[in-house]
Each structure stands twice: as C-alpha cells, then as structure tokens.
C-alpha cells in the first residue's frame, strides 16, 4: 500500500514538474496527461473507482486532446528562444510562498485536524448513480444546463454568417457545408512549414 502510493505520487509529481519545465509545448501536454493518469491512479488506490475511471475518460480522453489541439491550431510547437530564468520569477515565487503560507495557516487553524475519521463508506457505482438521480438531481440538472449553454455558445462563436443570412442545413450527400473542409488542413500545413 505504502510503496504503491510512493510510486504513484513520485510519478505524478515528476510528470507535473516536467509539464512545467519542458521547452516543447507538446511534450508539456503529454507530461500533463501522465499527471492526470497518476491522479486517476491515486483515486483508484483510495477506493473510488468511479472517480478514477471518470478522471481518465474526461482528462486524458478529452482535456489532454483539447490542449494538444489548441497548441497545434494556435501556434507553432517549436520551442521559444526565451531564457529559462526570467525576472518575473521573483514576483512569482513571492506570490506562491504567500499563497502557500495562507493556505497552511488556514488548514492548521481549522477544525479538520481534530475531527474523527468517519467510517470508510462503500461508494459503489450503483450507489453513486442512485444518489445522483434522487438526492442530487437538481445540481446535476444545473450542471447539464450549464454545459448545454456552453456548447450552444461555442456553436454561435464558430458559426459563420455569409452575408448576414442564414445558410441552409448542410448536406450529407453533397457536402455543401458552411466551412471549407480543407480549411483546417491548410492551417495545419502553414503551422508545419
């Protein structure tokens, strides 16, 4: 138990540090994916399989891919010529130490340390599902609404309005879609060259 925790924690920490310090942005994103996997392993070790698998599904399957796509579509993945040490480090370290101090103070002065450990629950997937659909159904619906609103917002931002008039529903057979399918590839080619 302890050894496995040490291995997982070391992997997570090392990959997190690597994600901050690599010069190549894609390498950073890949190390971050390892960090996500390490966190998932920690959840699994704590006996929360649902959270662990959901962590892998969402963070490695979606968030890491999103980051990688964002890097590729916005800027070159070549390393930038900036020096590793920069002057903003001093301010950054000061802020980090300050935040760490405040958090430590807050945690130490709270009553968490004195509290008795509750009996370890058995959060089966079935139990989580039942709770989500009965007691916590309203927060779940709210989150769903928020995500739908975000999706609609993204569609509105991405939508092109040719001459201010709405275009027809694109055609599966003929492929008369609003965006040129080769646009993305064109963009990629300029990034690569």
């Amino acid at each position, binding site marked *: 138990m302890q050894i496995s925790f040490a291995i997982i924690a070391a992997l997570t920490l090392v990959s997190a540090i690597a994600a901050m310090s690599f010069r*190549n942005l*894609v*390498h950073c994103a*890949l190390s971050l*994916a390892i960090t996500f*996997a390490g966190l998932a392993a920690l959840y699994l070790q704590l006996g929360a*399989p*649902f959270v662990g*698998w*959901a962590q*892998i*599904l969402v963070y*490695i*399957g*979606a968030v*890491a*891919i999103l980051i*990688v*796509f964002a890097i*590729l579509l916005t800027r070159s*993945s070549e390393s930038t010529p900036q020096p590793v040490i920069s002057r903003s480090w001093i301010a950054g370290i000061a802020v980090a130490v300050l935040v760490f101090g405040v958090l430590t103070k807050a945690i130490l002065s709270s009553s968490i340390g004195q509290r008795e450990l509750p009996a370890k629950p058995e959060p*089966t*997937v*079935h139990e989580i599902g039942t709770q989500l659909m009965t007691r916590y159904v309203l927060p779940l619906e709210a989150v769903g609404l928020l995500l739908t609103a975000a999706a609609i917002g993204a569609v509105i931002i991405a939508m092109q309005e040719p001459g201010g008039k709405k275009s*027809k*529903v*694109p*055609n*599966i*057979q*003929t*492929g*008369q*879609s609003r965006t040129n*399918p080769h646009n*993305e*590839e064109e963009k*990629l*080619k300029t990034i*690569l060259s």
Partner: protein
Amino acid sequence: MIGEFFKGLFLMIWKAATDQPDPKADFLQVLPHAIRPVAAVVLSITPIMIVFPTLFAITTWLERKGLGRIQNRFGPNRVGPCGLFQPVADGLKMLTKEDIVPRSADKVVHFLAPVALLIPTLLAYAVLPCGRNMVPINIDAGILFFFAVGASTELSIFMAGWSSRNKYSLLGAMRAIAQMISYEIPLIISTVTVVMIAGSLSLVEIVSRQEGYIFDLVPRWYVFTPWGLAGFVIFLIASLAESNRSPFDIPEAESEIIAGHLTEYSGFKYALFFLAEYLGMFAMSGLAVTLFLGGWHAPLPFLEWVPSYVWFLAKLVALVCLFIWIRGTVPRLRVDQLLNFAWKFMLPMALINLVVAAVWHFTAPWSFAGAILWRWLLCAVIIAVPYVWLGRALSGDKKLTQRTYRYAD
C-alpha cells in the same frame, strides 16, 4: 511435485474447456504461497495474449482472402494451403525489416507511440466476459473502464502523428482524433440504453440479464428489442468509425495522405500499430456481442451444451466478417461527410433511442392482448419517423439519380 504440477495444469485446462467455475483454484493450490497472486494474474492474462493475437493472424488472412474474392481475384495463395501461412510470412517480414526513424522525428515520442497504443487496447480485454466463468476482473464499472482505456488511445495516435514530423502523419492524426471524438459520443450514448435497461455497468451482470428464451425459442438478447436493434446498428456504425475501418478509414486514406499517422513507421513498430488496430476492433466487436448479442449465451435452447466461449468467439468472428464485407463494399467517405453524419444524424438518433428505451421500459407492465405488438409498433414509430425526417432534411433538395457513365461500360 512435478507430477502434481502437470496434473493441476491439465485439470485447469480441462475445467476451463468444459465451462466449469473457477478453473484456476486447484492449480493455485499446487504452487508455493508466495507466487500465488502473481500466478493467478498471469493465468488470467495468458489466454487473452494467445487467443486474440492468433485471431488477428487468422483475420488478416481472412480479410485478404475475402477482399480478394469481392474484387474478383484470388488473394494470397502462395504460402501454405490456400495461403493460410501468409500471416507467418508477413510477421517474419515485419520482424526482419529495417526500423527507420526520420532524422527530424521526436525520437522518444516516436518510440513510445506504438507502445502507448497497444497497452490500453489490451487492457480493454480485462473486463470482457469471454465465457461463462471467463472474465479476468469483474469490476462494478466495467463499461466505464472499457471506454476510459479506449479514450487514451486517441492520445497515442496523436503522439504517432506529431512525432513523425511529417505533413501526412499530422494530417492523419488530426483526422483520426476528430473522427474518434465525434463517434465516441453516439457510441457511448447507444451503450447507455443497455445500462438503463440492465441497471448495471458491469458487463458480467449485463450478460446475465440476457439469459433465457421467450417461448423457448427466441433468446432474450437485447438486439431483439426495438431499442436494442436501433442501438446495435448505431453502435456498429460508431465502432466501425472508432476502429478506423472502411468506410471510415479517412485517417489513413492511402489515396490522399499515404497512410496517415503510420506513414513514418516501418518494421516491427508498424506491425504493433496494425496489431493494436485489429485488437481494438476485436474488443469493440466483443463489447457489441456482450451488450446486444447476449454475450456467451447460446442462440437456441438445444445448443446450450456447446461451451460458452465458443459462442462468444463465433459471434465475434461473425461481426468481424461483417466488417470485412462492409470494407469490401462501401467506398470511403469525405471528412466533412463523416463529421456531418456523426453530429447531425448519429447523435440525434442515439438520443432518440434513449427515449425509445425509456418507453419500452415503462410500457413493460402492459398486459392486454397483443401488448407486445403495440409496444413494438409504438417504439418503431418513435425511431422511424425521426429517421425518415432527418434523412430527408439532411439530404436537402438534392435529387439522387443513377449515375450515367459516358465512357465506361
């Protein structure tokens, strides 16, 4: 000691072959205490590592033969009887080929990509129940596990495409990711219907829910319900796209981008990619069998004496043959057609199928005469009307007529 060891081994194989519960237990008693946990794991993994790569070898032969017949040629016919040893020759060729890494490639990521692709693909088999007592681990969230490990293959394909530092590789990887993310949504939503009805995320539980026969004739598989039939079709199409099979093979469309993310891979690394692709297809077909086709249950009551794993593998091979048939028949889609189809057709149909499953579930207490026919009719209308309407709306006012050939024919 040695005699006991082999006796235990043969007893275990005999028990596994005849569908008896917990075949490993007796054999583990023979082994020393310290290595029992490791031995139990190894004994679970070994059959998977033997059966599915063997199936891969047979499938490559079957696919080349089948495609050959569809295209009116012979296919491989030089190595062994009917070219049956062609996979062996292919494997030897792959092993002895030079491994070429492009000079400007990202060496570490280029090396890791095939490994990072193969490991999650193999992990997916951990939750598939291949027979009556044959599941390596029966976890509560089996389906979630399956899709979680499946999701991490997308990053591996990106690693392969990006690290090769080749335009075609990167284009292929981007196409692959766009396609896999788009089709993952209908795929997962079509499995949600099964989870709704079965009330469990465990694949073993889902299989046990499909036991038994209606009127001692029709098995209670989920594919024989209206939502199950629609869900099975949606799942099949989405899993074709998810495993990059034709007609959704645009990530490696050889006429456009050479071989996509595989362009800069050669020798054994290429073989690993190939293996991972086929193992992924088998895992997807295995999941389809488990969810909709009754898993390892026999199709008819008097066939129950056949061992359960035979039925599982038979259904799996039947699905693989269907995939080969589709590959030989249907031409490749364009990128925009593919994404439009995923988001504007597959996703709404999968969502409507959720409603159909709910209707089927809540009309279950109906008990008047001909209730089952009315339930079928109601569900069929709910799924068929949007299907026709959506299909008409998306094809627009384009008239589809028979193509006339001016010079050919």
